[in-house]
């Protein structure tokens, strides 16, 4: 470990720009990497240098350990920040950095590996005394053995294949009477799907909320937490709106949850920024929580923590990676006010949230007090089909949750993006939804359709001001340079191209 003088940012988009901005403040030289699809991308220009690392597919560029390490060597970097997604939780990459003599801004490779294994991570949490979702693979795999285990854990339970994942062979059992039918059915499906009928029984958490604790450790054995973020507004496990504080965590549960997160982090000897995700079951002081997983990197939603605690997590990452101690003692950290992050995705809420690609004919960010925009795009740029469709994050912070919602709403209404569809209308719909306003959203809320978004039900009137401008748009100089270059809706389905990305 030593001080960082030139740092390669092994990422793209908003997080690469955010890291580059931190480097400028720390007077660290920054090196961007870019694929052939990102020659024009603004993250390239945010850094002092930039190195082409390969063709558009992430596997050949942003996910290629060899090419990233080569780029670092070539540009004389002495450290690598992985951002989030891509190689950020790849233990082999962290190890390759170490082998190449490069500081990896993150935890050690063995810690990444250990926390990357769901089974290992669960074991570690349990051994640190952190609650995990009760469950196990009964030694007695007879119908009665499974039944006894289910009753021991307590109904409702999930009975599922021990071998596989993805919901195959999974049965929800809410009453004892249902057990008799569910067990053999689950076993048959497990056998058919995985060639292994071994069953796993787990407590079913109904309507869980996703609450996570930001932790930070250094090389000297210090670990602190930076309070929670609630990320229950999810669609297909993709977070959409995150906030801090959680609207439901009581001080007593917060104390228990942060203590659990610190215990797990200490148990694994955690270094740098990390997040421990929990499922929260219930509300009030009696709410229970269970360890879900640990993310061994900076999160997309780290700005809400920065807003409520007033710290700079990326700056602290650099300090700790350089071998300095943590910049804060636990008692110096406070949670003040409320912050909400809205992720702006290039996707069409009126058309099954299909990711959009195409030109950003016009892109104007709202600029106002209490609103932070971390964006990966600029006007005139192209949103490609190769990478995550997140364009930007809007973080509104204010004195209270209501004021932060009002601020986010007002700022989203002033966020002008033309040329491709975005989820902004959907975000506004969510921010105004009574369940969200009341803080009553769980992780299944969107997938159950509780906040059904019907664009046809939106205001159908054509505003006179819009009609007037459309009529007046005769002046050709009004048309942006790239106008007409591509029609966003004509692009092919990009779902298939998003592999390798974790939000």
């Amino acid at each position, binding site marked *: 470990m030593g001080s960082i003088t030139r740092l390669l940012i092994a990422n793209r988009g908003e997080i690469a720009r955010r890291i580059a901005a931190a480097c400028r403040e720390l007077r660290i030289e920054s090196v961007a990497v870019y694929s052939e699809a990102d020659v024009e991308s603004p993250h390239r220009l945010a850094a002092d240098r930039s190195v082409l690392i390969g063709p558009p597919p992430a596997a050949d560029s942003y996910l290629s350990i060899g090419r990233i390490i080569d780029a670092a060597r070539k540009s004389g970097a002495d450290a690598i920040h992985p951002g989030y997604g891509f190689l950020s939780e790849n233990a082999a990459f962290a190890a390759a950095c170490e082998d190449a003599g490069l500081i990896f801004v993150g935890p050690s490779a063995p810690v990444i590996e250990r926390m990357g294994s769901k089974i290992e991570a669960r074991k570690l949490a349990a051994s640190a005394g952190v609650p995990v979702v009760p469950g196990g693979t009964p030694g007695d795999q007879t119908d009665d053995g499974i039944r006894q285990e289910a009753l021991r854990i307590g109904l409702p339970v999930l009975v599922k294949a021990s071998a596989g994942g993805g919901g195959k062979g999974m049965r929800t059992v809410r009453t004892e009477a249902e057990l008799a039918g569910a067990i053999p059915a689950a076993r048959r499906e497990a056998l058919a799907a995985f060639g292994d009928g071994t069953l796993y029984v787990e407590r079913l958490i109904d309507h869980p909320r996703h609450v996570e604790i930001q932790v930070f450790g250094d090389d000297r054995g210090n670990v602190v937490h930076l309070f929670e973020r609630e990320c229950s507004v999810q669609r297909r496990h993709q977070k959409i709106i995150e906030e801090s504080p959680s609207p439901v965590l009581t001080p007593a549960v917060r104390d228990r949850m942060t203590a659990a997160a610190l215990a797990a982090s200490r148990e694994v000897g955690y270094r740098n920024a990390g997040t421990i995700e929990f499922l929260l079951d219930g509300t009030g002081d009696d709410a229970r929580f269970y360890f879900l997983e640990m993310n061994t990197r900076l999160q997309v939603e780290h700005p809400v923590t920065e807003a409520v605690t007033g710290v700079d997590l990326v700056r602290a990452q650099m300090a700790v990676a350089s071998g300095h101690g943590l910049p804060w003692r636990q008692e110096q950290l406070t949670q003040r006010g409320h912050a909400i992050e809205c992720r702006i995705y290039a996707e069409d809420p009126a058309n099954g949230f299909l990711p959009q690609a195409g030109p950003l004919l016009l892109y104007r960010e709202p600029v106002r007090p209490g609103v932070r925009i971390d964006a990966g795009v600029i006007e005139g740029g192209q949103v490609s089909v190769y990478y995550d469709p997140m364009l930007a994050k809007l973080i509104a912070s204010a004195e209270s949750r209501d004021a932060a919602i009002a601020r986010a709403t007002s700022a989203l209404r002033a966020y002008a993006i*033309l040329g491709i*569809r975005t989820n902004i*209308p959907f975000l506004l719909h969510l921010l105004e939804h009574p369940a969200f306003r009341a803080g009553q959203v769980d992780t299944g809320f969107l997938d159950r359709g509780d906040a059904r978004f019907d664009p046809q039900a939106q205001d159908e009137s054509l505003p*006179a001001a*819009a*009609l007037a*401008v*459309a*009529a007046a748009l005769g002046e050709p100089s009004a*048309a942006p340079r790239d106008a007409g270059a591509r029609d966003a809706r004509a692009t092919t389905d990009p779902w298939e191209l998003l592999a390798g990305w974790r939000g």
Partner: protein
Amino acid sequence: MTSTRVTIRAGDSSATVEWQPDPQDARTTIVQVDGEREPLRVERLQSGTYRVTQGEQSWPVYAAATRDACWIFVNGRVLTLEVSSERGHRRSSVGAHEALSAPMPATVIKILVEAGQAVKKGDTLILLEAMKMELPVRAPGDGTVAAVRCREGELVQPGTALLEFE
């Protein structure tokens, strides 16, 4: 001063709109939307940025055109509108603006007409030079030159009215 009627569609909705350039201000268009009491003034501020005014009220509006549609942002809403003229032409091929302006930064090298002069469609009214090319500014139709707003040798910018035509 003639006005142009266009039909604007978005999905199943449509509206009829009549517009004409503001003779006082080449950047401004005056638009009467069917069913609105008062006409709206549309001023182009910057690339893609407009101010629409109706009495005391005003809205910032952002717009961008593609081959197929106008993308408009107003009050937090994004609309994609299709514009067609009453004669069934695509809007983008109609657009004969009565205040003629330079298409790019250019030097006025010759003014061939004067105020009050009758001209025929296609007559060259002004010669500009830019990028070593001569650019003729031609009459968009038969009519009369209402006013000349530039002088020879002047460096003019896009959006600045060179002459008015009626």
